[in-house]
C-alpha cells in the first residue's frame, strides 16, 4: 500500500481534498503539489477531509501553513474536518485549532461556508 494517496472532488465552491495514509517528509511533496494545484486553478476554499489520514508530521503542517495566507488573500480558506484523535492532537498541541476552522464532519464544514446549505 502506498504511504499516501490523495483524492480531490468539488462540492459547490469548495474543493474537498481527501488524503489517505501518512503525510511525512517522504510524502509531503505529493500533498503539497495537490494543494498547490488547487490554488493554481483558483480554488481557494479547500476542505481537508482527514477521515482517512492516519498521521501528519510537521512537514505536512508546513505545507498547509505555506498556503494559508495565499488562499485567505483571495477570500478563501483551508478548513479541516473528520480529524482522527492523534491528528487532532498534533494540530491542537501547536495551537493550530485557533488558526484553522475545524469541523466534526464534512457536512458541517460545507454548511459553514456554503450559505444555501445552512439551516
Amino acid at each position, binding site marked *: 500500500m502506498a504511504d499516501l494517496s490523495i483524492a480531490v472532488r468539488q462540492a459547490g465552491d469548495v474543493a474537498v481534498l481527501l488524503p489517505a495514509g501518512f503525510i511525512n*517528509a517522504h510524502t509531503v511533496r505529493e500533498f503539497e503539489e495537490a494543494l498547490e494545484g488547487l490554488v493554481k486553478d483558483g480554488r481557494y476554499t479547500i476542505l481537508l477531509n482527514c477521515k482517512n489520514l492516519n*498521521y501528519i508530521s510537521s512537514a505536512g503542517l*508546513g505545507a498547509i501553513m505555506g498556503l494559508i495566507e495565499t488562499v485567505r488573500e483571495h477570500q478563501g480558506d483551508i478548513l479541516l474536518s473528520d480529524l482522527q484523535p492523534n491528528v487532532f492532537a498534533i494540530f491542537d498541541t501547536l495551537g493550530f485549532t485557533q488558526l484553522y476552522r475545524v469541523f466534526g464532519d464534512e457536512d458541517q464544514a460545507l454548511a459553514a461556508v456554503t450559505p444555501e446549505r445552512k439551516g
Partner: protein
Amino acid sequence: MEPAEFRLVIPSQTRYLNLVTGLAKRASLVAGLDDATAAKVSIAVDEAVTNVIIHAYHGEGEHSVELELRFTEQALEIHILHSGQGIRGDQVVLPDPKEYIKHPRKGGLGLLLMSRFMDEVRFKADEASGRNECCLIKKLD
C-alpha cells in the same frame, strides 16, 4: 530485571520513516504506554529522524541513522544516533506557538512537537568522535 535494548540501523532516506514510526509506536505499546501516547511517541521519532536526514545529512541518502530503543522500568528511551551535522542542547531554540500562528511560515515545528510529546528531549554532539545523538524519553506512569 536488566533493561532491554535493541538497535535498528536505517539508510538516511525518508522512505523508511513509516517503518521507523511504526516501530516506535509498537515499542511504546510494548513498554506499556497507551495508544494515544504511543502515537505521540511515533510522531516525535518521525520528527527526530527527519531532522537527521534533512538537516544533519542535508538530504544525502547514503548515510546511516541508528535507533537504539531502551526499555527500563521507568521509561522508554529512544536514542537516535548519526554522524552528520550535530547540534547541542544549548543551540536548540523552540518556536513560540503564539508567534508562529501570528506569522505563519514553513518549518520550525518539528522540535516543538518533539518537546511537547516527550518528557525529555536531549541533544549531544561529540565533536571528537563525530557521533551525535538525539535522545527522546517517555516516562512510564
